[in-house]
């Protein structure tokens, strides 16, 4: 199995502070990969480096075998990598439908077209409706995204990430702040919408992680100290010492 996403010795510093200190990681196609680690380990920063929100200080990130370091977020997206955010990051004054529709436009090739009526594009409508159904927001179609409940906004957040049909999906703490019931639903949702795709997620909730992930990497102080199957990670002494010991509920 070839690696769809690979990081080679990636570093990131903010001023004198090194946040990511040499991360090397290969994620094969179709894998569900979770990144865990204590607060401040640099998990979200790592996502920002992969998705192009921050430039890396050194090292290479490759997608489908081609380097994407230094590319703009939209260029990386166009190569098939899409992501969600830890802090809900949606279009608050657009309706749910509009939110999703915006996220499918590029993938369906409409780009910057200012000569086509968007309401009459059947493919766009159908795809957007399908996405809304899959994230369970059809009922809330015309509600402004800003007034949705928190869980609904999180679902929309995931919806925006998957709507374009990218084959590599990065989810940054998709269940953050959810109740247990809500996060069980979220796991179900994530499972269905990422069917057949490569998923990389940052997650704190260990039940979510162990329920979803094929493989887990443990990030501590900007370095991956272990990367293995859930079972192996559970039994890894270093991980236990560095992290799991305190984090498991």
């Amino acid at each position, binding site marked *: 199995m070839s690696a769809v996403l690979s990081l080679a010795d990636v570093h990131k510093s903010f001023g004198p502070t090194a946040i990511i200190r040499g991360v090397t990681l290969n994620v094969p196609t179709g894998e569900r990969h979770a990144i865990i680690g204590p607060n401040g380990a640099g998990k979200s920063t790592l996502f920002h480096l992969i998705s192009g929100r921050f430039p890396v200080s050194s090292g290479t990130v490759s997608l489908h075998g081609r380097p994407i370091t230094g590319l703009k977020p939209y260029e990386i*997206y166009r190569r098939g990598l899409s992501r969600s955010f830890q802090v809900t*990051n*949606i279009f608050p004054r*657009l*309706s749910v439908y509009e939110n999703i529709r915006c996220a499918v*436009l590029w993938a369906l090739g409409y780009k910057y077209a*200012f000569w086509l*009526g968007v309401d009459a594009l*059947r493919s766009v409508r159908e795809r957007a409706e399908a996405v809304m159904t899959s994230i369970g927001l059809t009922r809330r179609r015309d509600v402004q995204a800003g007034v949705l409940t928190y869980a609904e906004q999180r679902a929309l957040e995931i919806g925006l990430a998957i709507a*374009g049909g990218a084959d590599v999906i990065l989810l940054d703490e998709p269940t953050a702040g959810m109740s247990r019931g809500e996060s069980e639903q979220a796991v179900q949702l994530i499972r269905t919408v990422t069917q057949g795709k490569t998923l990389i997620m940052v997650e704190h909730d260990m039940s979510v992680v162990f329920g979803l992930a094929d493989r887990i990497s443990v990030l501590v102080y900007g370095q991956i100290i272990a990367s293995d199957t859930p079972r192996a990670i559970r039994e890894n002494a270093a991980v236990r010492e560095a992290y799991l010991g305190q984090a498991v509920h």
Partner: protein
Amino acid sequence: MSEGAILSWRSWAPWVALALALVLLPRLLSSGSSLTMMSLMGIMIIFALSYNMLLGQTGMLSFGHAVYYGLAGFVAIHAMNAIAQNKWAIPLPVIPLIGGLAGLAFGILFGSVSTRRGGTVFAMITLGVGELVASSSLILRSFFGGESGITANRTKLMPLFGYKFGPQIEIYYLIAGWAFIAILAMYAITRTPFGRMCNAVRENPERAEFIGYSTQTVRFIAFCLAGFFAGIAGALAAINFEIMNALSLGAAQSGTVLLMAFIGGIGLFWGPILGAILVTFLQVTLSDLTGAWMLYFGLLFILVVMFAPGGIAGWLALHGPALRSGRLGRLLPAYALAAVPLAMAAAGAILIVELAHHMLVKASSDGSLVHVFFTTLDGASPWPWLAALALLGVGAALTRLAWGPVRSAWAAVHAASAPVDGPAEAAVVPPAAQGVLPT
């Protein structure tokens, strides 16, 4: 509805109504000045809508939009002169298209520099580019004609179907026709993939980058299209006045279009139309009534920014749900109650401004008698001042009191009406800052 059609048949009714109104208006108001004013309104509607493609639709605050209006006007006036001189077979109604293309060209030129960033930085750059062009206009004399500008004679062009476009009525219809096309086109653009992405960029530029869109490209295209429509407006102004001078591309003109769009309401497509009509009307007529009209203008603008950031259109649109549910009537008593002290406060403020304006500007030559509100007051005596202050103070205090009933009436109407979940276009809050402080 065919795949990709921008407007459905059902949504055509308002356009037919608009076209009818444009055609019939001169029948009702045929005096020369109404025609002049309506022509001007038509031009300003296009200009203000083009401005709102930036501010309202894409969240780009420009302080230099008149550059494209003015430059295109100059190109248009040179084109008219060249066509007349060389007897080319190009009739007058085509000139606005030339202006539009000129606006587009300048939009591409300056837009490539200024749209790299959004938010406040963009605003500053437009200001700088505006000053640059305005200052250059007095240096490049052969193109701008110095401070006296360039004139043309529109009747020297090839007549079209026997129309020579001398009389104002023919110009009115020319402007009305172009205004109709431009309004329709700009509305249509808001209903396209690009138009929706403009809104997305306005709402959350960062996220737009993560769903595949370059915000810079979206801003750039919006900027160029806005330049195109501003160019149409500028060319129509050139045709209407038969003169362009450097004032048309200066900071004052840029400020005016911002005022129009914002007072009208940038959150709704038709807001700037309202603003263009109102501001043009006030500009032309208010100066007959008071020398302090610019001050009123500034105050009106500040009041709108502070208390009705959705502009007049936004305020009107708030009543939509109540109107649909037939509960508008419940608001009226509260409004009537609040209107009285509000009018008192306004009258007090106007009195103060008029008294001050008269005493400071005119009293040395005119004496201290001030004509205001159909009466004559003596600005040298303290009583009118005290009365005005009292009006303002008491009015303001009572307005605050009366706001309670208005608020509770609103609450009642809201509770009874369906929740506001109409199309997001009806939002009344101006777009939040775009990348002001990069995180």
